[in-house]
């Protein structure tokens, strides 16, 4: 186990800079998820951690050792690739034992460790098969097995679940989380799926365009997103955003959207007249007898909850409620917003107010 320190890391490809001074501190045994949209640099950062990509500037340390110029094989890390990268010509057992073979461990020790890992991952009966004879989930587990046999300081996962179907993804998510609880090894995990990030991470690093937007515990990011990007990225379905300004109504501050919609505000230091972005999560909107009148556009019942898309002025607002609502499209209902759940962002900087 080791802590990992990413200090002001910069990555350039020729004249193009794709990573602009990234800082992340990862503690012993922490499960850290790097999340962000495609092209945000999360996989590049992971590959730099693995030693597969050069670092243009800054330092990466594993334990107390700066590893900028250390080759991948000497970093004591294990990586699970998106495509699993299993060696097609080797059996499951040979695949899992490969890192130990490279470390010139005695055969008895290799067999013992592979056997133990296979037992943990329920692969013991598949050790003589070839990767092409396995299902996606089994291949995924072999890739994980190959990583855990070495007992590395840090595990790196590069979107390991993205090739699996939705149901299997949930199962594997639980398995990876369980594995972490059992092994207590530091894990750095890359995904573009914010649900994966929220459910698995001790700490989430949200990235965009080669920069870290926010670092924090999943619920902290959910409750206190530091800017519009993080607020929109974390949480599903995405937060509603309305552009407008702060107005004064009978001495109390209110939000007036560009289309004229008036919404309640929490206590805020924002001045009257300030241009702001008003954010409210769909799950924080209720339906009541009184409130903001809206026209229903679409109602999507999923059984456990109902998602309502409704129009208020020119704005479309998305709400999710636990009740079964049978509102017909075009009919009018009332949305109820608790001001405590409202997020306000500066319209220019898009930072949290």
């Amino acid at each position: 186990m080791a802590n990992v320190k990413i200090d002001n890391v910069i990555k350039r490809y020729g004249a193009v800079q794709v990573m602009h001074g990234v800082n992340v501190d990862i503690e012993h045994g922490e499960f850290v998820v790097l999340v962000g949209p495609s092209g945000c640099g999360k996989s590049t950062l992971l590959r730099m951690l693995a030693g597969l990509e050069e670092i243009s500037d800054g330092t990466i340390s594993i334990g107390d050792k700066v590893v900028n110029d250390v080759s991948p094989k000497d970093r004591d890390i294990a990586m699970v690739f998106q495509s699993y990268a299993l060696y097609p010509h080797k059996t499951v057992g040979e695949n899992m034992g490969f890192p130990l073979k490279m470390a010139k461990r005695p055969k008895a020790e290799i067999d013992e460790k592979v056997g133990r890992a296979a037992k943990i991952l329920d692969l013991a009966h598949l050790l003589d098969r070839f990767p092409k004879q396995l299902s996606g989930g089994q291949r995924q587990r072999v890739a994980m097995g190959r990583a855990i046999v070495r007992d590395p300081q840090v595990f790196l996962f590069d979107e390991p679940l993205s090739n699996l179907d939705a149901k299997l993804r949930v199962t594997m998510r639980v398995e990876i989380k369980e594995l972490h609880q059992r092994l207590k090894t530091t894990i750095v995990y890359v995904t573009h799926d914010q649900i994966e990030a929220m459910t698995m991470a001790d700490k989430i690093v949200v990235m965009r365009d080669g920069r870290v937007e926010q670092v924090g515990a999943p619920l902290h990011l959910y409750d206190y997103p530091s800017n519009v990007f993080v607020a929109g990225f974390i949480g599903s379905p995405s937060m509603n955003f309305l552009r407008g300004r702060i107005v004064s109504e009978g001495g109390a501050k209110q939000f007036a959207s560009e289309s004229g919609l008036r919404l309640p505000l929490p206590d805020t230091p924002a001045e009257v007249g300030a241009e702001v972005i008003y954010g409210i999560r769909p799950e924080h909107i209720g339906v009541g007898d009184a409130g903001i009148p809206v026209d229903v556009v679409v109602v999507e019942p999923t059984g456990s909850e109902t998602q309502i898309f409704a129009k208020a002025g020119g704005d479309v607002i998305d709400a999710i409620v636990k009740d079964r609502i049978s509102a017909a499209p075009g009919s009018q209902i009332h949305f109820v917003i608790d001001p405590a759940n409202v997020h306000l962002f500066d319209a220019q900087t898009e930072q949290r107010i």
Partner: protein
Amino acid sequence: MKTLRPWLMILFWTFISFLTLFPIYWLFVVSVKPAVELFSTPDVILTKFYWKNYIDVLNDRTLRSYMMNSLIISTGNAVLCTLLGFLTCYALSRFNLPGKESIFFWTITNRMAPPAVFLLPMFLLLTQVYAIGDFKLADTRIGMILVYCTFNLPFAIWTLRPTVDGIPKELDEAAYVDGASPWKVITEVVFPLARPGLAVTLILTWVFAWNEYLLAATLTNFNARTLTTGLSEYVTTTGTEWGIMAAISVFTLIPALIVFSLVQRHIVTGLTFGAVKG
């Protein structure tokens, strides 16, 4: 597509097989008949076997050494070209070499002229230039292996490139992370996965060297003379020994047939390697 009737297919392939195999059969017939019978009414039905041609060939020490030369030169050349071609393709595929596309194209330029163009320069190089003291490359096995490399290596690079490019780089990366050295990545991961392509390249370069006549006839006198050039020695001013030539030809065919049948499976996989995502 509408499938043809089975008997029509059988008839078709029987005809094609006959067309392909009949000359070989006839060659064999010629090799097991005494000279006098060859010039009487041609008869392709074998009634008795006359093995003297084969015995003569096997008893001929010169021919035996020609056969050994052919085997050593072809095998040495095929192994050298395949290994060097593989390493070249690996470098072209995995490393950011400046101008690598130009390098790739440049390798094939010597195949754009007929081999005869290279005869004189090759002759001068081997007899005059590449010499250490009394040792010259002309009329040596190593000399012929190197000469054939100039033609076969570009060919090997071109046939192996799709194979090596088709092996995902992620496998190299996984091996690096698993603790493999660059050399181990090649020997443990890339080389075994390139086997189908390597087999094809090995065979095709081997066959080229085994069948080659022009360069061997010009650049060897006695020590490194090959079987193909040996054949021509039986065309003399006093006549042509057809029976002996046919027997030598059968001997020439046998190793090629054996090698082909051994790696036939790999050839088919190799030629289609990378055609579909597997």
